[in-house]
């Protein structure tokens, strides 16, 4: 495991792109997210790590509104989103992707991305014009597809694509919403190592004004691509810092890196 690729640590300053205060999510007696106060700086490449069951996905759910938070607040660029449902948060610029593909499997790759753009532009109220005749939408969709190197697959139904490429459709759909903050829940989950490289390479190439918060369990990828890391244990933030700081942190090694640390040392 190597240290971050020499990237300077970005300290959170000014108004964060997204910020939570005391965010808590309970399922019955079980506290999945416990009093999380997280600040993600504008333009950040911020990773969320933690052992299995640490509540990473639950935090993503609460943040993006998949599941309403039990208590606490969520602010996007200073605006309080806590009371808003998921769709309204997306329209304000907070978009997520899913750990397990959530795609429109029977639709073509192009339709998958176009639909996100049409919803963003509020064009889906139109039931008379042809959806494919909208050239601005088609052009933008093709740009997103070109970005994730899927332009050759535009006309294919999504279910006919290999899983690794479907992961890129997942990303392209999210780009179609024009997010300000993009939350990626294990963007390379379920694909072989060689392909997860390619997926993270695309994520790395995203414009710097897009704020990224991503969950990832592959430490190699985290230390290469993240500039800031928050460690979640049992639903609560244990620590936060630069990749170098997190790697040096004894407690993190204990709860999370312990076993892997041995492997790396061996």
């Amino acid at each position, binding site marked *: 495991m190597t240290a971050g690729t020499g990237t300077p640590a970005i300290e959170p300053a000014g108004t964060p792109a997204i910020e939570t205060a005391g965010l808590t999510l309970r399922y019955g007696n079980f506290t999945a997210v416990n009093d999380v106060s997280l600040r993600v700086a504008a333009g950040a490449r911020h990773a969320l790590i933690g052992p299995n069951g640490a509540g990473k996905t639950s935090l993503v759910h609460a943040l993006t509104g998949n599941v309403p938070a039990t208590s606490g607040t969520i602010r996007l660029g200073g605006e309080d989103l806590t009371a808003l449902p998921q769709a309204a948060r997306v*329209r304000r610029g907070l978009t997520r992707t899913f750990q397990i593909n959530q795609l*429109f499997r*029977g639709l073509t790759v192009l339709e998958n991305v176009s*639909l996100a753009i*049409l919803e963003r532009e509020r064009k889906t109220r139109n039931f008379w014009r042809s*959806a494919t005749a909208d050239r601005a939408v088609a052009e933008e969709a093709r740009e997103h597809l070109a970005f994730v190197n899927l332009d050759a697959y535009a006309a294919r139904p999504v279910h006919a694509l290999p899983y690794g490429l479907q992961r890129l459709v997942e990303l392209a759909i999210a780009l179609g919403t024009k997010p300000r903050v993009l939350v990626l829940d294990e963007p390379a989950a379920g694909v072989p190592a060689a392909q997860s490289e390619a997926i993270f390479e695309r994520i790395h190439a995203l414009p710097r004004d897009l704020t990224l918060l991503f969950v990832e369990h592959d430490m190699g990828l985290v230390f290469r691509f993240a500039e800031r890391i928050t460690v979640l244990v049992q639903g609560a933030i244990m620590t936060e810092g630069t990749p170098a700081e997190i790697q040096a942190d004894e407690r993190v090694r204990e709860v999370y890196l312990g076993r892997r640390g041995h492997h790396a040392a061996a």
Partner: protein
Amino acid sequence: MRLVRVGAGLPLLLLAVAGYFLFPEYLTLFTSLFILSVFALSYDLLQGHAGVVSLGHAVFFGTGAYTAAILARHGLEEPLLGLLAALLVSAALALVLTRIVVVGNDLTRLLVTLGVGFLVFEAANQARDLTGGADGLSDFTMGPVLGLFRFDFAGETAFFYSLAVLALVYFFLWRLAGSPFGLALRGIRENVRRMPAIGAPVRRHLATAYTISGGIAGLAGALLAQTSNFASLDMLGFERSAEVMMMATLGGTGSIPGVVLGATGLGYLKDALSAMSPKYWQLGIGIVLMLSVFVLRGGIAGAFTALLRRLRGRA
């Protein structure tokens, strides 16, 4: 699938007109098949396009039928005005019912729509003054369409009147299916969970679809009341709701020409089998339905697409 969706409208229309010349003694049957097609198309906007099932769609069909009949009884004899009123009343009822139908999953939706169907049926049964109760309404006369075309005994006016409405509904739904709204409905069908994550107002989309669907079902009901000069409780009933689901499934849910073929096919089969054996015709329908599920996956439209693909592969 696209080829089937786009290309089939005109041949179907020509086929219907050919039916007029080839089988002039069957105009009444054709008329009823056109009406069934309109009804099936209205239902398939929900099941086939948005992926939302309902076992109470006859509520809107019956509402349209009663609206047309009641207005005619009170002197509104112009059929087109009756159609328009039926469309609006049924659509309004659908919009009101949206709130309870849109929530939940397929199973709860089936139960809720079934329950609504029973409630409306019983309400119509009780409201004898308005609906004629179990006797239905037949004491009304329809004026000529546009003041020009009288409903004649041979059923020629009814034939073209119903065919014109079917053609308009077909064209409207075909446009809708290819529109951004149609794409959003297919998005709901394909993955309702992803939709909010791209900022889509799912409930709003479903409410719109449900309202349009209810309105068109009302058109179909009004057509039946006007062309048969009769409105009765069975037009609201569960059997009709179940039948429309069968027609859509048999034809190939999600395919507009497929659904028309399913409706005409099942409607014709019902007519032919009951003429053959008044006692056992349901047996035949049952067998056809089983076959359509186990053999003819994707319905008539699915079989047609598979055939086209095979032919193209050979060429």
